[in-house]
């Protein structure tokens, strides 16, 4: 049994170890190790395309995770006091968001937005004064942020609701009995109690958005995110530079997720 477990761990970590190892290869070849070097890390960090893609990924992940955390937390709190069809409808929306494959969400968003743009853009052009170039809506950072906010929002609602359902209603009732306004109760009682879940939701959303390839592949338009850059690099042939980028991304995601876990765990301890 123990040997079996060791085998599974070897299976899980071999590919990751290989990526990390070859990122330190001195040669150009991705399949032969030719001496130790960190040059590919330097090249990756100095590649303007990589940095541009990284910047886009960070920006989209940050904005969509922030929006998702705010909207998701508000909804989770609001849902606490709602029963009946509204709640059932919202639950169904969350269920659909989680259940529909990312690829379907990606294409659905693509054709919906392109259809809307086809209607709006000629209209904008007609409304615009003749001597200036009319603005034209297109796929890009905006559509990326909107789509990522949608699916990470569902995630935040699930996480925050799990935390809320574990809280005792007595505290907020006591607060209300002591004549605190609902807003004061939220700010002073509920929010501190759910803060770990909100923060964990933010970090998870950030990582999901940052890692997402499939939805971004459809809705990014001409913008490039890091996963899109990595995917097209792999298509062109594997180089140690891609390995270096991959290793850095793995380490960064890991650090974020460990932080998220620590925060969640600390929040789970009973407060006295």
């Amino acid at each position, binding site marked *: 049994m123990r040997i079996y477990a060791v085998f599974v761990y070897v299976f899980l970590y071999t590919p990751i170890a*290989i990526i990390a190892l070859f990122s330190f290869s001195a040669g150009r070849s991705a*399949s032969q190790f030719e001496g130790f070097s960190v040059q590919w890390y330097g090249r990756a960090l100095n590649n303007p395309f990589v940095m541009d893609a990284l910047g886009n990924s960070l920006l989209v992940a940050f904005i969509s995770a922030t929006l998702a955390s705010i909207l998701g937390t508000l909804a989770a709190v*609001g849902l606490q006091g709602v029963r009946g069809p509204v709640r059932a409808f919202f639950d169904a*929306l969350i269920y659909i968001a989680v259940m529909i*494959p990312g690829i379907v969400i990606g294409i659905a968003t693509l054709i919906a937005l392109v259809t809307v743009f086809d209607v709006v853009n000629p209209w904008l052009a007609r409304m615009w004064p003749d001597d200036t170039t009319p603005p034209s809506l297109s796929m890009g950072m905006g559509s990326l942020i909107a789509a990522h906010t949608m699916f990470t929002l569902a995630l935040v609602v699930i996480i925050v609701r799990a935390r809320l359902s574990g809280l005792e209603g007595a505290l907020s009732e006591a607060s209300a009995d002591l004549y605190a306004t609902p807003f004061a109760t939220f700010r002073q009682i509920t929010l501190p109690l759910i803060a770990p879940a909100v923060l964990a939701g933010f970090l998870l959303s950030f990582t999901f958005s940052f890692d997402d390839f499939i939805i971004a592949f459809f809705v990014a338009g001409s913008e490039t995110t890091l996963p899109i850059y990595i*995917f097209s690099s*792999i298509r062109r042939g594997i180089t140690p530079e891609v390995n270096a980028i991959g290793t850095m991304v793995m380490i960064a995601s*890991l650090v974020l997720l460990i932080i998220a*876990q620590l925060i969640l765990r600390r929040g789970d301890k009973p407060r006295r």
Partner: protein
Amino acid sequence: MTQRARNWLLIAPAGAWLLVMLVVPLSIVFVFSFGERAPSGGYVPAFTFEQYANLPARFTAFQNTLILAPLGTLMALLIAYPLAYQLAVRTSEKWKTLLLVLVIVPFWTSILIRSYAWIFILGGRGLPALLESIGIDDVRLIYTPFAVLVGIVYGYLPLMVFPVYVSLDRLDKRLLEASSDLGAHPVTTFFKVTLPMSVSGIATGCMLVFILLMGEFLIPALLGGGKVFFVGNALVDLFLQSRNWAYGSAVAMMLIVIMLVTVTLYMRLISKLNVQRDDAALM
């Protein structure tokens, strides 16, 4: 402001976002699936079932998905179960958390990078070269169904271990002792006590993995090399290359329907086994 109005106000922004970015796009896909392809690509309104009638043309993609997704789910379960058992039942508390975290860590690193690692391993200078050195020549691994299967099992294994672990960890260990005290063989104990009590974890794990595999695109694209493609790959091809939106929408609708039917049937089956699901444990 009344309590009710306040709650509504809190839910409204998120609800609106989900409606606009999820329900509206999915509805458009539904509507488009009855339309026709514009001559230059895209969509022209129509009401025809032609796209659905043409679905058999993409039979291979559906076939690959419907064979490899359940097979991948099953293999992930068979590999994950003994590990989850080892962690939940046979490992001391001290090591449990660390070993469990080590299982989850790979899942939290980009599936793109993890899959592409397998191009190395299964490609010409990886395993085939290793096999050649021990006398097994001309083994082709990359761009085969086998490669795709390895990729999906590898990619989703952690997702299977976790729920199975949770259900086994909750299992009252005294039951296992009682069973052996009453003279049951360990194998009997496993099939009569352990396995039935972990059905909920198996159900959750299988459903999660199966749902994700049905929409898979990356792993077949990278490890299948255009030969072993899933419905996801067909969708990318239809929407981005041939720009046949109407037909693509019908394929997407078909995928959703197949998923809904299989998942619903599966949940029926599980609830017949009278099991409480504990998805909440995953969060």
